[in-house]
């Protein structure tokens, strides 16, 4: 079974971010960049399918050359190959543009399943997976929290977390899946895995290599543009009540009635 996993390099969510003074983006000085953690779960899902069925796990990413490091993480976890599309013409591309680029790469690779994280923790858009499924003409199952592939590898039954329940969906392969954090526990790269990953070549492609043009997928084709980034509205600490239980209950009750008006 041949699996393609889409990977994005993002700022470490544990670290604070600094917005540039002009609000055009974030200041990358000293920023720790990591593989999007939903993509770690996607990589893990791919590796488990390879263990079950044989085949290959290929990682694909779109981003600046530094994104190689995120692919290196996935290779160290055990993926077989990695491809990075890096082209300055993609600056300002929107999600649909990026999904088109991913589709162009994946069409050149054998794929029984394409696995993406549910979202990336930088722009939080959750858009690439389903758009990519459309461009590849594949059926999709998004936000997969449980995955069972049938013995012949012809399809899967997945659990999707929906509001107030779990949807059990059968999806035939080849298919595109986006995965939840609860799907699995990603493995840590082993030391031999890290050493092996260091020696692996990461293929870097440009739009030209893929037969795409900036006019088709770059900023000229983008339907959305980030105007600015701002800090979230600051919340001020409010009143603090320290007293006995009666005082505490009275304060909360008064707040719910008079300020929040929910009682």
């Amino acid at each position, binding site marked *: 079974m041949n699996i393609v996993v889409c990977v994005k390099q993002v700022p470490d969510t544990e670290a604070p971010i600094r917005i540039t003074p002009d609000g055009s983006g974030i200041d990358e000085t000293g920023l720790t960049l990591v593989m999007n953690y939903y993509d770690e779960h996607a990589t893990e899902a791919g590796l488990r399918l390879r263990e079950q069925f044989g085949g290959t796990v290929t990682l694909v990413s779109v981003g600046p050359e530094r994104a190689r490091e995120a692919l290196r993480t996935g290779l160290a976890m055990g993926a077989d190959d990695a491809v990075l599309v890096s082209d300055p013409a993609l600056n300002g591309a929107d999600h649909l543009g990026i999904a088109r680029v991913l589709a162009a790469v994946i069409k050149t690779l054998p794929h029984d399943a394409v696995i993406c994280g549910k979202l990336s923790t930088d722009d939080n858009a959750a858009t690439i997976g*389903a758009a990519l499924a459309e461009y590849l003409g594949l059926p999709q199952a998004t936000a997969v929290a449980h995955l069972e592939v049938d013995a012949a590898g012809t399809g899967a039954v997945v659990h999707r*977390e*929906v*509001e107030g329940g779990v949807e059990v*969906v059968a999806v035939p392969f080849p298919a595109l899946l986006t995965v939840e954090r609860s799907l699995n526990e990603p493995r840590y790269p082993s030391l031999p895995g890290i050493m092996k990953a260091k020696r692996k070549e990461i293929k870097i492609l440009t739009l030209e290599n893929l037969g795409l043009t900036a006019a088709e997928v770059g900023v000229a084709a*983008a339907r959305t543009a980030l105007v600015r980034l701002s800090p979230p509205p600051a919340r001020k600490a*409010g009143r603090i009540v320290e007293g006995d239980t009666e005082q505490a209950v009275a*304060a909360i009750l008064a707040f719910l009635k008079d300020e929040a008006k929910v009682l």
Partner: protein
Amino acid sequence: MTMGADIWVYIEHAQAAPKKVSLELLSCARSLSTALGGNVVAFVPGSKIDRVIAAVGPRGADIIYTAEHPLLDTYTTDGHAAVLADAVRAESPAIVLVGSTAQGRDLAPRVAARLGAGIVTDCTTLGWRDGKLLATRPMYTRKAIGTVRVTGGGPCIAVVLPAMYPLPDADSPRQPEVRRRPVQLDGKAIRTSVREVKSVHRETIPLIEANVIVSGGRGMKAPENFAILDDLARALGAAVGSSRPPVDSGWVPHDYEIGQTGKTVSPQVYLACGISGAPQHLAGMSGSKYIVAINKDPNAPMFQVADLGVVGDLFEIIPKLTEAVKKVKSGIGD
């Protein structure tokens, strides 16, 4: 594709009732349509949807388009994407609004890709500037707010978070005209099949629809202690959630989790009980209108964002608060 002036709302429904967020988006559509002078259109796909239409009717739409077909009875990406994309192609609305739910997030990017429509997700506000749609949305796990402009011609799709727009009253004087759109669907084109929807048993309402959320953290100490939060939630008509530690410890199911790795909520009131206030949790709830925190530790970071902070023992406070809320609700001692 030319751009019309109508604003559409994709109406998601379950058990013959429209989802609350879909109705909220009729308010959003109305505020956006004033500048364009077009209609507010409710798009209702499904099978046997008369009760949904009746429920949407008095919420302020000008037109209700239906797409009825037995194959649309259960949501599938292929089925709903086909009818929504066909209808948008035929009618060219300016904007299609979709609620940010599991279904909405599954559907909207697929349809946007099919139509080449601009898509912006998890919007908190939408408005016009210089004739362009401008959206705000949380980014970088709520450490920043992005302002996004939709450019280019043709329809665009905005996926909007719940609880951002008011629920319109069910007393609109508008009598929406119901137009039944013909639907052509081939069963073979629907590649996935929903085997079952297991509803997770909850005594309280879904988190993303709740006006009030009672949430517990590590300070709850043990799984059985969540019962006191359930009692308070019942009294308040609230939903129960949690921070990550209770989920990781197996005290509550995964779908309770609010935060960076869980759900994003923005209720009127968020009552944080024994939650220290780690950035990963704040990322999921700092959009709440009011935050009330109860914690033993006066240095808990949650107090930095709470409108009302109570330093005390939640195991004493919460049961008494529940009794007091019940009294107010029943009109005694008010």
